[in-house]
């Protein structure tokens, strides 16, 4: 799971945040639009390295590794 770092202007998230109340969904805050990369891997311990090197740009994005069996 990769999303823009906190504090970086996220116009896509802001647009969604404005659109939700317009449809009657109140009480929504801190919307960030990121992307999900799904991988089948032999060794999940190597995924953070993949994120650092290719999947995310650590200067502008945070990533989280979610393992599902």
């Amino acid at each position, binding site marked *: 799971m990769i999303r823009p770092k906190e504090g970086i202007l996220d*116009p*896509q998230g802001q*647009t969604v945040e404005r659109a939700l109340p317009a449809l009657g969904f109140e009480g929504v805050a801190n919307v960030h639009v990121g992307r999900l990369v799904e991988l089948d891997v032999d060794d999940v311990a190597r995924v953070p390295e993949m994120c650092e090197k*290719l*999947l995310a*740009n650590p200067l*502008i994005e945070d990533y989280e590794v979610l393992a599902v069996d």
Partner: protein
Amino acid sequence: MKFGVVRFPGSCDEHDALLACRRFADAEVLWHKDRDLKGVDAVVVPGGFSYGDYLRVGAIARFSPVMEAVTEFALAGRPVLGICNGFQVLCEAGLLPGALLPNTSLRFLCRDVDLVVENADTPFTRACSRGDVLSIPVKHTTGRFYAPEEALDELERQGQVLLRYADGHNPNGSARDIAGVANRQKNVFGLMPHPEHATDPLAGSADGGRIFESLVAHVEELVAA
């Protein structure tokens, strides 16, 4: 003097880059699988959508074989110019500081912008004077320059901001109106506007030619020395 213009799958501005370079010197194409830079004196990484811009702009191109050679070339102090997608690639490759984010408007922009020359003492801007205003087009969706505040202070202190959008001309929300930055050594330069599209008055402006002219003067001075 010979320019090398890198062509990735998805590059689309390499023709104009070649034409622009050929107004001032020789130029040839470097294929993304080339590991040999064919003896060129300066490298141009042009605009486009390298590898489809999948995943993140410039993220895949940085791992192409030619980028290993370009990185070596840059680390040896030789001049490398990245335009638009080329700028994004050089940032992803760690040859330039910062990153490019989607425009605040989330829209594709295509327009002429005025740029102020902030540092004319570099291989890319020596044909200009500080304070000169250049009219050069931008065309991009992901051109908002970002670096953390401390890094921006450092860039300004070191004179790495070469071009800034003139007042009211920042099209994309770039930090501190930055349109183009160099590395600390000033031999690698990236900018979002397209100087290669502004080398003939017929195109509306020939101001972009000053960047290519500067590079030629720089290389010729090195050869003479």
